[in-house]
């Protein structure tokens, strides 16, 4: 707890939370939305294809999307770390925040599993397995849960009070 308080009181956290600079909290949280749009948006498109919507879309080239989704993931891991540091004690002791982390962990494992399932050398690519479809449903549910938990964590901690900038 002392460590969490120290992180919250660090120069960087104070700058993020209280500087009033457009480059602090506002820009970091904008990037957090951009990363979300990239990873959840492209995941959703792939999941819909796997579930049989737009069946004419070949699956094999979709493999190229995964590195872009990982970029979205890392944008959010870094921006999320900065946001969590600014409210460290409130976040880390909140079951909602921990739930969000757990859901994202599962969603990322699901994403990696779906990639393995879709692009195994033995599969022709277009005959989608039941396992792939199950993973696509899980992916949609988990990202929905992550977004819901994420929206609610925004009401936790001192940063929730940030209002207009000067």
């Amino acid at each position, binding site marked *: 707890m002392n460590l969490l308080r120290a992180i919250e009181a660090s120069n960087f956290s104070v700058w993020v939370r209280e500087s009033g600079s457009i480059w602090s909290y506002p820009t970091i949280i904008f990037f957090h939305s951009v990363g979300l749009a990239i990873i959840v*948006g492209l995941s959703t498109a792939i999941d819909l294809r796997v579930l049989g919507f737009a069946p004419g879309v070949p699956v094999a080239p979709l493999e190229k999307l995964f590195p872009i989704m990982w970029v979205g993931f890392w944008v959010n891991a870094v921006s999320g770390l900065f946001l969590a540091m600014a409210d460290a004690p409130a976040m880390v002791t909140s079951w909602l925040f921990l739930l969000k982390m757990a859901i994202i962990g599962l969603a990322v494992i699901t994403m990696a599993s779906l990639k393995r399932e879709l692009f195994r050398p033995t599969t022709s690519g277009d005959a989608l397995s039941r396992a792939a479809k199950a993973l696509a449903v899980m992916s949609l549910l988990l990202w929905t849960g992550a*977004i819901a938990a994420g929206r609610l964590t925004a009401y936790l901690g001192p940063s929730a009070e940030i209002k207009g900038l000067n």
Partner: protein
Amino acid sequence: MVRSLSIWLHGTSLSWAARGGVPWLWPLCETLHFIGMAMLIGIVGLLDLRMLGLVKGVPLRPLQRLIPWGVAGFVINLLTGITFYAGDPFQYLDNTVFWLKMGFIALAGVNVLLFYATGLSRRVDEVGAAEEVPRAARAVAAASLLLWFGVMYWGRMLPFLGGAF
């Protein structure tokens, strides 16, 4: 006109509910607003990336069959956005950042209209795997990405630059 519409909206029960009369409505709409955003940007962005030449193995015609899901995301955001507006119309009415966001949405709409009205979408429909789209379609795709991420930027800046929540 927008002012009288705002005054009317403020008197509706939707406004009362969004203002806190139904405490879970605002967080629910925020969650849906982000889900709709991911659907819109995910589908439209994928189409844009393909037109810009990134996942060239995908032919355009079947990919365009996902567009209704992007439209569904937009409709979700329109409805939840109206709910936010109704909750406190006057924090948006004279708010430059809010109107910048609306302006970017309008430009994104014009971009879509141009794509369909100029027959570009039909030409793009004929573009198979490994083929390139016409140059004009690439310009539309680049504008689409810029404008939608711009919409997100202004939306995110509403509490900070616009003083709205």
